[in-house]
């Protein structure tokens, strides 16, 4: 007995294949019968890609984003696998819709194929549910906000708060939410879809794919087999083409419950999103429940409609389906057009993309286990900002936060900052709350705007000689400094000398700020009246250097 016979005797694959290919195909090959093949193909493709993704993806609130960013940006071809899975989901929705349409057109919803029709509708519903449960999994801004909105809608249905608690795994989104969505998306829903696909396949075998007009001889292998293969190939090509065209699939910044991300649902939910716009306030359930519910009921009633009303019923079914499709398409197009015109949305999208790019670049060195948002800790500026918040901001305000005790450091030592300081050093923004109260304010009665500009230019020249300066102004300022204003009675300008006020040689530079942070009570700095803590020894040299650089960098470059 050959190996072939040995296997055949046990498995019967060859005869099963023959039975599959030789089964009668009454209506002859038709493209509309091939939609089911595309649907089966997509399911298998999604399952394989999905399994591959689970070898990298981790469904926990702290790991989901980082693991998705890792598999998308660092794993070879990860972007392609994830992109094909994501685009495959879109195509699955389209093909599941086409499948319903194909059955309607073939009149495959009347006796004895009612159950096949119901199964097709269920598959379409499950395709949407798979999108609903799959899109939040990366736990990026888009996914996080989408599920928030969707759960919000679900909550408005009768008993909705229970659904929300069950899906969310509690009162707030977190680890349990992701695990529940993942379990639904990866196990429960696919199993149901698989069962339904098997069911439809068996129904097709039992009853034929559709009522055949004049019955024709011929079997599946005579043409439908190839048509099916072509349908599968085209489907695969579309998925691959879309993925390559879009360079994979988008991944926004990690979920941030405090951000104002402008959430939009996935494109195949846009029609519902738009529909909701027409029913504000208490009418909202009309868009979220009544209309979709009526549409589903209508489709489920198709077999009955035709039984009751005959030809009229058929016209109603096809017409109703056409209206639904046209309406959904129109609403989708309108929602997209709205967003294109919506400047605030477009702007927020640009911002969101920028943030996403930054977060994903930072993720390449590994994300702290704290969670997706911790990716920003990798930003060197983040660390120094934390240092500033911890050690400086209580006294020195920055960009509208903290402060009130010591000079504000927003735009520190810029021309504007120096001008304001000279005009009123005792303002709370500067030394008002400190013990440094001996410098008199120079209001416009004492110092004209031009004189002020000249003085500031001179003071700036003390900072860094290589700055672009207005030489004439500097000269004018120097004269004012010495003669008219007598600044030099308190402020030295030769390095090392001390006097009542701080020596201004090289003030505002990195080195100067570093010395102030180390010990501002040095005689040539702020002297014995200084209240600022000495950070020498408290912070490391690197930390002090980083903080100085941070403070100096707050100074905006001079206006052109």
């Amino acid at each position, binding site marked *: 007995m050959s190996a072939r016979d040995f296997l055949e005797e046990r498995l019967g694959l060859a005869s099963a294949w023959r039975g599959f*290919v030789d089964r009668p195909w009454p209506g*002859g*090959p038709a493209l509309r019968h091939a939609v089911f093949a595309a649907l089966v*193909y997509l399911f298998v*493709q999604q399952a*394989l*890609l999905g399994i*591959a993704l689970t*070898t*990298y993806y*981790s469904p926990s609130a702290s*790991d989901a984003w*980082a*693991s998705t*960013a*890792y*598999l998308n940006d*660092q*794993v*070879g*071809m*990860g972007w*392609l*696998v994830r992109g*094909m899975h994501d685009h495959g989901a879109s195509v699955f929705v389209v093909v599941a819709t086409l499948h319903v349409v194909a059955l309607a057109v073939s009149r495959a919803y009347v006796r004895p194929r009612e159950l096949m029709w119901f199964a097709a509708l269920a598959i379409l519903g499950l395709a949407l549910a798979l999108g609903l449960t799959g899109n939040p999994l990366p736990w990026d801004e888009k996914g996080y906000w989408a599920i928030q909105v969707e759960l919000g809608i679900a909550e408005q249905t009768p008993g909705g708060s229970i659904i929300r608690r069950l899906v969310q795994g509690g009162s707030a989104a977190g680890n349990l939410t992701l695990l529940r969505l993942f379990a639904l998306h990866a196990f429960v829903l696919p199993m149901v879809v698989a069962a339904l696909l098997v069911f439809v396949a068996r129904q097709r075998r039992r009853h034929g794919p559709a009522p055949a007009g004049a019955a*024709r*001889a*011929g079997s599946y*292998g*005579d*043409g439908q*087999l*190839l*048509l*099916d*293969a*072509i349908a*599968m*190939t085209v489907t*695969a090509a579309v998925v*691959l083409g879309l993925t390559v065209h879009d360079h994979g699939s988008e991944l926004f910044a990690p979920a941030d419950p405090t951000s104002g991300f402008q959430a939009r649902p996935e494109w195949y939910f846009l029609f519902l999103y738009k529909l909701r716009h027409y029913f504000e306030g208490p009418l909202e359930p009309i868009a979220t429940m009544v209309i979709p519910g009526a549409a589903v009921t209508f489709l489920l009633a198709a077999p009955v409609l035709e039984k009751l009303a005959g030809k009229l019923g058929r016209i109603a079914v096809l017409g109703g389906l056409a209206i639904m499709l046209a309406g959904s398409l129109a609403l989708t197009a309108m929602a997209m057009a709205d967003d294109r015109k919506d400047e605030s949305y477009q702007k927020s999208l640009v911002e969101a993309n920028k943030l996403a790019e930054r977060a994903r670049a930072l*993720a390449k*060195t*590994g*994300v*702290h*286990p704290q969670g997706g948002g911790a990716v920003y800790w*990798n930003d060197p500026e983040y660390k120094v900002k934390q240092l500033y918040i911890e050690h400086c901001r209580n006294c020195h305000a920055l960009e509208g936060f903290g402060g009130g005790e010591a000079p504000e450091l927003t735009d520190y030592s810029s021309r504007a900052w120096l001008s304001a300081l000279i005009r009123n050093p005792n303002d709370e923004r500067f030394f008002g709350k400190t013990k440094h109260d001996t410098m008199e304010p120079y209001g416009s009665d004492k110092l004209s705007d031009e004189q002020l500009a000249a003085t500031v230019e001179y003071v700036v020249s003390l900072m860094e000689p290589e700055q672009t300066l207005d030489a004439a102004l500097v000269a004018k300022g120097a004269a004012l400094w010495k003669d008219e204003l007598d600044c030099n009675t308190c402020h030295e300008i030769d390095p090392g000398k001390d006097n009542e006020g701080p020596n201004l040689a090289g003030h505002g530079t990195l080195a100067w700020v570093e010395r102030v942070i180390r010990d501002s009570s040095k005689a040539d700095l702020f002297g014995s009246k200084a209240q600022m803590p000495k950070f020498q020894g408290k912070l490391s040299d690197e930390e002090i250097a980083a903080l100085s650089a941070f403070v100096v960098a707050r100074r905006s470059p001079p206006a052109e």
Partner: protein
Amino acid sequence: MTIPRDDDPDGKTAAPPTTRRGLLTATAGVLGIGVAATVLGPVAVMLGQPLRHDATEGEGDFIPAGPRSLFAGDKPVKVDLYADRVDAWNRVVQVKVGSAWVLAQGGTLVALSTVCPHLGCGIDYVPEESKFYCACHKSYFAIDGAVETGPSPRGMDALELQDDGQLVSIRYRRFKIGKKTQEPA
């Protein structure tokens, strides 16, 4: 491509049924293989990533093990080594990456990995016998790390050690288990 036409439902005039059927099936098969490749190819590359890149980093640098004074005694001292580590998408600060036995041999300090070369269990020290012992399958090692009895194929793995008189640092590494000679894992 030959698909039966309405006027020729059985395709009899196009070609003899068996050849025609074979051709159709073969074409469908080729398409199927092409489609499968577009999915399985990327999936295979993705799953094979660990063959091309290591997902964890963090071994290989000298890690401070403790002050020199800690190892002044004549008994081996077990030290846990902490380092920053990248584990796939995570970067974890100061996690335990491994441990080592540190002891003086002829006046200089040496470090021996606690990972048993047999199957990777943790090696303990038995002070009463002045021997190292792996309880998993009963391997005994002499105080210098050489195998005495038991299934371990080689002696305990020595780790590079730096001793500047004040601070002792160890370069932690893992080696392949079950081999006669030391090979990096």
